[in-house]
């Protein structure tokens, strides 16, 4: 579904990604792991078109989308739940969700189905985003992404700053999304959750791919070694 080939991304003179390559097939879930500053969010933003790469290509459903702006990628079926939720604070929850529907390319996720899938978002629909709790914000942020009718969903640090009980609810949603056939790319600090929820894992270390594997084939020690850049048990 999406293929990233030898991607370099710079912030001015600073290079954040070095020749990153990965591929994700339709209906699968990929965990993107790595320490703070490894380049995970940069990669997701590059996949959304928020950062144009200095080298490399991004192909989505067979088409080269490397140079496309974010709104074109959303129209083609890519959506992102950004780190920190980043709702529009002066808008109500429902207004936030409707902003996500601005480039709706698919009738797959009408508002009624979104509320059915995310009841928490429905209960706070008339409240301003700035007044929502962390879990409510996460539900609305996921709802906003679904409103565009995505076929590929990029989830950035979806458990960050949430209470353990709320994290469990968020991963219930992730499981529901998987059952609905969505393709997911999940950035997650919690390795166990990421490995448990995904089919594949890619580990970034200082902007480079340190590990690519199916989660079933990689031991936790392998991933931890790639995560921290230490010698793995099988190296």
């Amino acid at each position, binding site marked *: 579904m999406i293929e990233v080939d030898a991607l370099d991304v710079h912030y001015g003179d600073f290079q954040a990604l070095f020749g990153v390559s990965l591929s994700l097939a339709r209906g699968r879930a990929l965990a993107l792991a790595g320490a703070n500053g490894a380049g995970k969010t940069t990669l997701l*933003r590059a996949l*959304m078109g*928020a950062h144009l790469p200095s080298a490399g290509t991004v192909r989505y459903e067979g088409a080269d989308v490397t140079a496309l*702006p*974010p*709104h074109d990628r*959303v*129209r083609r079926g890519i*959506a*992102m739940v*950004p780190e*920190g*939720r*980043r*709702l*529009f*604070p*002066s*808008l109500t929850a429902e*207004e*936030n969700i*409707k*902003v*996500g529907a*601005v*480039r709706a390319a698919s009738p797959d996720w009408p508002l009624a189905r979104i509320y059915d899938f995310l009841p928490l978002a429905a209960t706070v629909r008339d409240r301003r*985003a*700035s007044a*929502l709790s962390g879990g409510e*914000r996460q539900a609305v942020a996921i709802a*906003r*992404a679904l409103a*565009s009718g995505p076929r590929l969903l990029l989830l950035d640090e979806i458990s960050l700053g949430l209470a353990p009980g709320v994290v469990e609810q968020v991963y219930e949603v992730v499981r529901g999304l998987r059952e609905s056939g969505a393709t997911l790319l999940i950035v997650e600090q919690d390795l166990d959750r990421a490995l448990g929820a995904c089919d594949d894992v890619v580990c970034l270390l200082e902007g480079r791919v340190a590990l690519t594997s199916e989660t079933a084939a990689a031991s936790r020690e392998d991933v931890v070694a790639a995560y921290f850049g230490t010698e793995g048990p099988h190296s």
Partner: protein
Amino acid sequence: MNWVGAVVQGVLVGGWYALAACGLSLTFGIMRLVNIAHGDLAVCGAYLTLVLSSALGLPVGYTLPLVLPIAFAIGVALHLLLFGRALRGGPLAPVLVTFGLSVMIENLLVAGLSADPRSLDAGRLALAGVRVTAFGSVITLSWLRIAGFLTALAVLGGLHLLLARTSFGRLVRATSDDLDTARLVGVRVRPVFATVAGIAVATAALAGVFLGMTATFDPYAGGLSLIFAFEAVVIGGLGSLWGTLLGGVTIGLVQQLAAQWDVQYTVLAVHLLFFAVLAVRPQGFFPASEPEAA
């Protein structure tokens, strides 16, 4: 004029200041663009009305259906050609670019239409007034001033409804809250900003038409208009439309009340009020809510 009359006139004049300032408030509040050329664009609206009115032989009011769409189109074009690029060039670039635009507009107007003071013929409305009695005082109110105030209320109310009740307004508010996230979720920011710039220039042009009907104007009149508009925006609260109305009315009131004391202090009184507000409440009376981490 008595004190009661000064208060009423101040409120009515304040409506014009609010009308002149609301475009500035929009572009700053939504696009974070400080448009130094805003006053000059208002004066352009007055000149455009003058030219069209003369060329077509129409009363001023009948040219508005032409003037406002042209002004809107100019605003859209300015964003696509200048403002959008300037906004990508860091915080100083928009100030420098719009300052350059201001200088260019003034010189083009002088070269094309001379520096002679002009005015717009408001017809019978120019001298028509209504006498009212309030608190034992008889006040004569100009219908033109009343029309200006009601127009300002209608424009601000319309803009409020546009922003609060429409899908376009929702996109504008989202973009104003968090530009980066708006892009990430698929909002096409460029057309949103271009439309906002178009609306801002159209409201400036409308303010210019009322300026031309109530006073004389020349190519350099935009500078003073900009100062008062800027002060109205700051006093009312940056980025807040209703705050801008309050700021405009406050300026009008201070001006008229100072005139009761001594006419030569009207402008000074407004500037002193501006400095006082900056010192005591720099965010203005009704600032737009600051974006927060959500």
